[in-house]
Every structure is written in structure tokens, then in C-alpha cells.
């Protein structure tokens, strides 16, 4: 078995929120996804990925904001990891 990984960054913490960024990693070696390879998201929302058979295995926590740092922004907040397991050739 090999793992394919899909990472979706959504517009808020809800799994049915719109996709704003994404990544794909392919453990089968059949494809070589890379930075900048697609300008259109593979799924409109996280729920659309579920409907296509992707299994959610991690979701970003919703964390409180430290006093004095409420306006500091860094990384994308709403990160969801999905996987598909496929038979190795």
C-alpha cells in the first residue's frame, strides 16, 4: 500500500469552507506535484474531498490569541490533511 496525501487550507475552520491553498504529495511516485503546478484548487471545499474518497486524518486546532499579539499573522490557519491508500504497483 502507498499513501497519497492531500492538504487543503480552508477559509475558516469549517470543513465545508472554500479552499484557499492546497498541496498534493504522491507516495506512489506516479505523479510529481510541486509548487506552482496548478492555479485551480482540486476541490472547492474539504467536504468535496471527502465525497471523492479522501479520508481526513488531521485538522488544525483553533487556538486562542495571545494578548499583545492579536494582529500578528504568520502561517495559514485552517489546515486539513487527507489521505488515500492505494495498492502499490
Amino acid at each position: 500500500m502507498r499513501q497519497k496525501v492531500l492538504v487543503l487550507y480552508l477559509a475558516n475552520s469549517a470543513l465545508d469552507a472554500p479552499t484557499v491553498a492546497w498541496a498534493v504529495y504522491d507516495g506512489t511516485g506516479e505523479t510529481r506535484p510541486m509548487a506552482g503546478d496548478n492555479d485551480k484548487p482540486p476541490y472547492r471545499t474539504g467536504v468535496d474531498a471527502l465525497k471523492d474518497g479522501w479520508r481526513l486524518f488531521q485538522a488544525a486546532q483553533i487556538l486562542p490569541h495571545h494578548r499583545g499579539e492579536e494582529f500578528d499573522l504568520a502561517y495559514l490557519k485552517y489546515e486539513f490533511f487527507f489521505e488515500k491508500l492505494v495498492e502499490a504497483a
Partner: protein
Amino acid sequence: MADLPLLGSLDMARFVARGFLRFDGVVPAEINDQFLTEAGEADYPKPGQKMMRTYGELLHRAQIPEVAAATPLSDAYPEGSAVARLLALPLVKGAIQSLVGAEPVFDHHFLHVTFPPAYYQAGGGEHVSQHTHQDSTIDPTAGFDLQIMYYPHKVTRDMGGTRFIPGTHLRRVSEVALGRYQNIAGQQHMVCEAGTLLFLHNGIWHGGGVNHSDRTRTMFKVRMNPSRPQVRLWDVEPKAQAQRPIFLVKTPQPETVESILMTSEPWFEQDTGRLEFVNRIKLWRHLTGDPTYDADYWMGRLENPARA
């Protein structure tokens, strides 16, 4: 230099909001040709020769000087060299002065070359794009450095081009820690004619694209620091507008500094997109020297003294 074409307030607002200004085809062909001659061409790699060695040999031969960091920019390039001539163009000089002042300090420069597939077939190595990153390291300062990317020849889509994501420059991240994000809504790929310049806030997220064409792609980057506070260095008119209606808006709004600062990017999260607006207001306050500046009441609501 009284007649130097400084940036106007709307262009400054665009830079503050989106982190870049693009000037297409503004460098004359004569300077582009001179630069490409000075930069030189990479040799086709000998079988088994690593790509990095081929690249290193190109850099060694290029007629681009080694320059110590913190050198005055005006002393960095030999008179008559292509880069010196480029930096002396009135449009370039005016934009630099507007963003980082009249006497910026040279930080570093680099000749970025991306190679076509044949070079990897001969020399090995994986032919992939560069991970998206923010240059240098975590930057908590209020101001910014300017990075100029110079495209001396035409760049087509299959040549990769620099990928950048408008509006990401105010995020405080640690270089390529964000490399996991392969694609971001609204990302742009530089496709341009020869002689195009991209002026970037040092914080903007970017990366080199993969070159699928049959020729090398060359881009020259130079980073410069301000040598004085970045306050009111541009053509500051028009002044800030009074507050405008927000949320329930029935009439079309004219383009103003405020309308530009309050324009979202496609990748904005619904909540932190508002914090991006706040951070743009803070940067505009810094650049105008006006600690009371506000747009669309984001700060006025929070700074109401009755709520302190």
C-alpha cells in the same frame, strides 16, 4: 532631482496592500542586451557534471561584481554597467526613492538562472520548482526592504517565471517554513516582455518556477535597505479621505487609498483577512507618519478612548 517621477499615493497604497509593483518593458533593449552579455550563458553541462557546478561556473564568469553588504547602492556597480544604467533610469530611481529613500543601502544581489530539462538530463538532479518562501529571516520591523527583480529577456509561461502571491508580505514567517503550501489562490507567475521590473516588499511569498522551455531563464535580483525612516518619501497627494460607508454600501466607491488598502486577496481567510486590513493600516500609518490614520473604521473602533 526635483523632476524625478515619484510614485503617487495610489501606487504606494497598491504596494502596501499587495506587496509589489510591476513595470512592464520599461528597461530599454540596449540595456537588456548589455546585461545578458555581462551575465553570460551557461555551458551545456558535461555528462555527469552536477547542475550546481554548471551554475557555479556561470556565476564565476559573469561580469557582475562581488559587492559587500551595507555598501551604498550608488557605489555598488561600475559606471556604465548594465545594472548601473538600469538604476539610473528616472522611473527606476523615482520608484526606489519613493519606497526606500534617495540613498538606499545595497544588501545583496544574485543572478537567478533556471535551466531547461536537457540540462538535468545531462547533469542529473531533479527538475522541480522552488518551494515558496519569504526571503531572509523573520522580520518584525515596521518598515521594509525593496527587492527589484529584473527580467532582461522575454519570459513565457513554459519558462516557469517567478511565482509570487500578492498580499502575503505582512505575514511574519520563517523563510521556507511555509514550503508545504504548493499552490495558493491568486498566485501569479511572471510572464513578461524583456525589460520588465518587479518591485517587491521583502516579505512577499515567492519561488522560482520550473523551466519547461528549451532555453535558460535569467532573472537578476537586487535587495536594498532604507537609510532613513520611510516616512512620506513619495508624492503624498491626495491626502487621506474621511471615513466612508462600510458594510451596507449602496453607491459605487471611487478608487482611493482606502479602497485599495481594503481590497481582499483570493487566498484571504475570512477572519484573518480582516487582520490583514489592520496590518495594512498600520503600515500606512508608519509610511505617512500619521498615527491616527484609519480606513473603514478598523482601528477607530478598537481605539475608541471610551472603551479603553
